[in-house]
C-alpha cells in the first residue's frame, strides 16, 4: 500500500515535470494573442483554434495576409516557414537514407571482417564522435565557404552525415556483434562474398537497429541548429530551427505565433519517437552495458 502511494506520487511528479512544459506550449499555441497575454494566464485555451497555424502556413500568400485581421504581429520571416519545413524534411531524409547505406557497410566491415587496419578504422570513427561541434563549426564554415557551398542543402547533408555516422555505425556494430557468427560462416560457405553476407544475413536480421539508426539520423538533422545557423543564409537552404530562432529573437513577433511555430517543429520528432519508441531506446542504449 505504501509502495503504491509512493509510486503514484512520484509518477504524477514525473508526468508534470516531463509533459507540463510541452502542454503549456501546446495550450498557448491554440490561443489568440489577446488570450495568452491575459494575467493571470488561461491554463486552457478559452476558444481553442488553429488560427495561429493557419496564419503561419498562409503567410506566404500576400492576398491572404491583407484580410486575415490578425490579433498579433507576424514577421515577414513567417513566409519562410513553409519552405524551411520542406528543407528540414529534405535534409533529414537524405541524411537518414545515406546514413543507412554508409553506416551499414562500414559497420559490417568493422564488426565482421578481420581486416588490416580494423582497429584504426574503429578508433577514427569513435574519435570523430567526441570532437565538439563548436570546434568543428569554424573550420567547416571556412572549408564550405571556399568550396562555394554555403547556403546549400548538400553542405548541410554532408555535415550532418559526419555528425551522425559515428553513432549510427556504433549502433549497428553493437547489433551485428549479437548476430550469431555461425550464420555468417554458413553464408560464406554457401557461396556468399562479403556483399552477399551483408545482403542475405546482416541486412534482413538487423531491421530493429536499422530503424533506430534511421530515426536517430533523421531526428538529429531535424533538430540541429548550430551548423544550420552558420552554413545557411537564405530561405533556399535554411531549416526549420533557423526560422523559428528568427521568430524568437525578433521581439516584435507575437507570442502566439512563436508558440505555434514551436509546436510545428516539435510534432514530427515527437510522433516518430512515440511510434518507434522500442527501436529508438534499444538503439540509444546499444552497448551501454558493455561500455
Amino acid at each position, binding site marked *: 500500500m505504501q509502495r503504491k502511494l509512493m509510486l503514484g506520487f512520484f*509518477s504524477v511528479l514525473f508526468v508534470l515535470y516531463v509533459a507540463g512544459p510541452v502542454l503549456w506550449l501546446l495550450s498557448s499555441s491554440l490561443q489568440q494573442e489577446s488570450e495568452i497575454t491575459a494575467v493571470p494566464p488561461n491554463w486552457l485555451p478559452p476558444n481553442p483554434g488553429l488560427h495561429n497555424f493557419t496564419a503561419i502556413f498562409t503567410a506566404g500568400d500576400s492576398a491572404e495576409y491583407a484580410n486575415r485581421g490578425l490579433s498579433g504581429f507576424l514577421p515577414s520571416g513567417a513566409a519562410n516557414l513553409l519552405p524551411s519545413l520542406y528543407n528540414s524534411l529534405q535534409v533529414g531524409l537524405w541524411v537518414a537514407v545515406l546514413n543507412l547505406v554508409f553506416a551499414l557497410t562500414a559497420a559490417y566491415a568493422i564488426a565482421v571482417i578481420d581486416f588490416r587496419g580494423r582497429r584504426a578504422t574503429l578508433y577514427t570513427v569513435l574519435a570523430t564522435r567526441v570532437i565538439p561541434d563548436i570546434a568543428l563549426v569554424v573550420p567547416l564554415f571556412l572549408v564550405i565557404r571556399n568550396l562555394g557551398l554555403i547556403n546549400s542543402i548538400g553542405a548541410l547533408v554532408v555535415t550532418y552525415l559526419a555528425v551522425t555516422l559515428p553513432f549510427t555505425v556504433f549502433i549497428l556494430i553493437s547489433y551485428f556483434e549479437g548476430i550469431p557468427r555461425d550464420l555468417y560462416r554458413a553464408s560464406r560457405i554457401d557461396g556468399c562474398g562479403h556483399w552477399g553476407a551483408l545482403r542475405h544475413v546482416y541486412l534482413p536480421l538487423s531491421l530493429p537497429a536499422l530503424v533506430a539508426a534511421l530515426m536517430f539520423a533523421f531526428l538529429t538533422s*531535424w533538430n540541429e541548429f548550430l551548423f544550420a545557423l552558420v552554413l545557411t543564409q537564405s530561405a533556399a537552404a535554411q531549416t526549420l530551427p533557423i526560422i523559428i530562432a528568427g521568430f524568437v529573437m525578433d521581439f516584435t513577433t507575437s507570442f502566439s505565433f512563436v508558440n505555434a511555430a514551436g509546436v510545428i517543429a516539435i510534432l514530427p520528432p515527437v510522433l516518430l519517437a512515440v511510434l518507434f519508441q522500442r527501436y529508438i531506446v534499444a538503439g540509444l542504449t546499444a552497448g551501454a552495458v558493455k561500455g
Partner: protein
Amino acid sequence: MLARFSYDDRSAALLVLPVMAVLLVVAAFPILYSFWVSLHDIVLTRPLRRPFVGLENYWRMLGDARFHTAVLRTTVYTVVTVGVTTVLAVGVALLLNENFRGNKLLNTLLLLPWATPSIVNGLMWKWIYDPTYGLLNAVLLKLGLIEHYRAWLGDPDLTLLLISNAAIWKQMPLAALLLIVTMKAIPDDLYRAAKVDGATVVQRFVHVTLPALRPGLMLVLVYETMISIRHFDLFLIMTQGGPGDASYTLSWLIYVETFRSLRFGTGAALSYLLAMLTFLLSWLFIRAFGERNG
C-alpha cells in the same frame, strides 16, 4: 600489387570507404585546418592579410578577461547541469525500473523531452520564464512564493541556472535510459540475497544498486559533460550571453569572436582550447570512475 591484399582487406576497404571519406572531409580535415587557422591572424574583414602569428592567438585569449568569465560561466553551467541531470536521472530510473501499471506510458513520455528540438526547448522555457505572461510567475504567485511578477532571465544571479534547468529537462531522459539499461542488467539474485540478509530499501540501494550502476553513471557523466561544456543553442535563443555577461560561456564567446567580430584566428584557437578541455575532462572522469571497468 593488389594480390598482396587479401579478399577480406579489399572488401573491407571498399565497405568503409564512404564513411571514412565523409569523416575525413567533414571532420578530420577541418580539425587540422582549424589548427592552421588558429596559428594565423585571420580577420574576415581583412581577407588579404593573414600573417602567421604562432601561438599568439592562444596567449591572447588565455589572458583575455572575457575568456576568464567564459570559463567560469561554462564551469558553473556544466557542474550544475551534469550534477542535477545525473541525480534526477537516477531517481527517474529507479521509478521506471519498478513494475507498475502505467509504467509503459511513463516510458513513452520520457522520450518527449529527448525528441524536442533544442530551439523549441529554448523558446518553450523562455515563454515559461516570461516576465509578464509566463507560467512560472503565475504558478509561484498562486502558491504564494512570490509577491509580484519577476523578470527571471533578467536576473544575472539566476540566468545561468534557469538555462541549465531547460538543458536538464532535455538531457535527463537519455541519462535515465542509460541508467535503466544498467539497472536491468543487475541480477535479481543480488536483491534477493540482500533481502534475505535483512537489508533495508536504502541499504539495498547503497550496497547493491549504486555499485552496479557505476559503469552506467560513468557513461552518463562523460556524455553529459561533453554535451554541456559545448552547449550553444540555448544561450543564443534565451539570453545571447546576457544579461551583462551572466551567461557568457565559452561556446558563446567562440560564436561572438568568429561570427560577429569575424576574427577566425582567435575563434579557432578558442575552439581548440574547448576541445582540449573536453578531452581532458572526459579522460579525468574515466580515470576516476572507470579504473575497475576497463
